[in-house]
């Protein structure tokens, strides 16, 4: 165990997490971009895939493929078993109480929309309130606005402080008699802020208000325990945890899922259908209409196993080391300003430069083989809050290194020279 005096990271990561070994698991890291070795600093947009995931998806099609939940033949039964095993994998990943609380989705976006439509909509009347924060991804703003237009409910927004954090007292002040739902981002993709969600949930629950957490950026970087958090819903996407895109999962407490009407109608979500009366299946199948992205789910299961085999604590420590190092080095670049300096942060550095627009930064970095994101990061209200049109953002995955941070800094010096 570490003591208060020694930095917990430097020593532990060196022994417990071998990044050079880990990099060998990601074939794309061998490629070149514009003649330079790829430096991939855009994992918050989407993470790269390890060989085990790529192979699992390929093998699913090559050796195991059939439709699931409907065949008596061997392939279908076999793949159904594998598919359902991923549900257990996700349950254990989030420490949910039961597999029945895990609904497969297309990703975090669909998870939020499902909850908005099947859980929140029936509870809303004109004038009711839904609380979000000022740092939400568009996927946790627009579904609520759409509900608002339909029902007359209004969105209340917890303000973001200058360092990119929110204050619990501001959140508490927004909770009112009319609050019907709280939906907040666990970790911000634009600022990296880790929100005090446990305290927020407790405050909301004191008033019997259910809470959804958007965990798209949290699950890649920290271990999440939905029972300890006591959240009512939790959503994430497979592609940000080194799995395939277009798949993800929604966790919902059994007591809520049971009372929720279906989201989409179709095959697989029914118990029986006749033109007189259709009976819906129990959760989670009730929310999984149609043939899903079967091999994608299989791939997501392998990705979760891969991530856990490295140890989430070790991954978190490694990424925190990169964050601390990058923050220190970037802060020394004249004319560079970091956006999002909250004390609790995940591996995201958003920044602007006096001399150059984020787009120009992005293009120049790209020519050095460095992939970052430039733009509003699907969080335009955050840009408005900080009065910038866009930011440049470097985000770290488990395969990044300090040497890559050095390359980033070097390239940013080049930007400064060009535009000075």
């Amino acid at each position, binding site marked *: 165990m570490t003591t208060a005096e020694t930095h917990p990271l430097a020593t532990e990561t060196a022994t417990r997490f071998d990044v050079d070994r880990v990099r060998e698991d990601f074939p794309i890291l061998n490629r070149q971009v514009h003649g330079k070795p790829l430096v991939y600093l855009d994992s918050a947009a989407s993470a790269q895939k390890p060989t085990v995931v790529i192979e699992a998806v390929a093998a699913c099609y090559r050796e195991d493929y059939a439709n699931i939940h409907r065949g008596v033949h061997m392939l279908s039964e076999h793949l159904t078993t594998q598919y359902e095993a991923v549900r257990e994998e996700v349950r254990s990943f989030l420490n949910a109480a039961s597999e029945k609380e895990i609904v497969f989705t297309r990703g975090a976006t669909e998870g939020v929309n499902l909850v908005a439509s099947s859980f929140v909509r029936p509870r809303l009347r004109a004038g009711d309130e839904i609380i979000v924060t000022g740092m939400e991804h568009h996927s946790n703003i627009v579904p609520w606005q759409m509900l608002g237009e339909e029902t007359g409910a209004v969105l209340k927004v917890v303000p973001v402080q200058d360092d990119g954090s929110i204050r619990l007292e501001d959140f508490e002040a927004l909770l009112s008699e009319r609050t019907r739902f709280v939906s907040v981002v666990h970790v911000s993709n634009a600022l990296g802020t880790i929100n005090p969600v446990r305290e927020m949930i407790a405050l909301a629950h004191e008033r019997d208000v259910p809470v959804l957490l958007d965990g798209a950026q949290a699950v890649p970087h920290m271990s999440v325990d939905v029972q300890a958090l006591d959240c009512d819903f939790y959503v994430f996407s497979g592609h940000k945890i080194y799995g395939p895109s277009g798949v993800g999962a929604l966790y919902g407490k059994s007591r809520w899922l049971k009372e929720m009407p279906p989201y989409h109608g179709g095959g697989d979500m029914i118990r029986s259908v006749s033109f007189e009366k259709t009976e819906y299946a129990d959760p989670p199948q009730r929310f999984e209409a149609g043939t899903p992205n079967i091999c994608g789910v299989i791939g997501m299961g392998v990705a979760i196993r891969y991530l856990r085999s490295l140890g989430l604590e070790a991954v978190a420590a490694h990424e925190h080391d990169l964050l601390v190092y990058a923050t220190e080095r970037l802060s020394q670049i004249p004319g560079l300003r970091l956006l999002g300096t909250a004390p609790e942060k995940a591996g995201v550095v958003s920044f602007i430069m006096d001399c150059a627009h*984020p787009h120009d930064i992005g293009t120049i970095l790209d020519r050095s083989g460095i992939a970052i994101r430039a733009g509003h990061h699907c969080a335009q209200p955050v840009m408005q809050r900080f009065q910038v049109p*866009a930011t440049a953002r470097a985000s770290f995955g488990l395969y990044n290194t300090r040497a890559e941070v050095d390359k980033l800094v070097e390239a940013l010096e080049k930007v400064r020279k060009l*535009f000075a």
Partner: protein
Amino acid sequence: MSELSDLYQEVILDHNRKPRNFRAIDPCSHDAAGYNPLCGDQVHVYVNVEGDRIKEVGFQGEGCAISTASASIMTESLEGKTLAEAEALFQSFHALLVDSSRPLDANLGKLAVLAGVRDYPSRVKCATLAWHALHAALEGESEASSE
């Protein structure tokens, strides 16, 4: 492979640092806003047209070096042009950015420094944003989107 210096030529860097005609023209005969929803770049273009001739063009806004320089060079290139000449210039400019097989149109003048943009497909919209706004202004629309 093209070099960064082909994109960020000295002329472009200079127009980015000191954009020409960077002002609202009030009153003006035509104006419109241009917006690139992908990156949030925005520009407002103001034009005074007398008869069928463009007397002056100004712009304001916030954007990357490419969109700022392109808007700045555009305002200089258009002064004194007829509406038909302006339209033809836009067509040539657009072709310059999207079709590398096309020979350089001599009428482009200073606009030709933006030719390097065609090697950066994701940046073409930056270079055409002000032009779309100009087009919208002359057509009597209030807004243009680069999408």
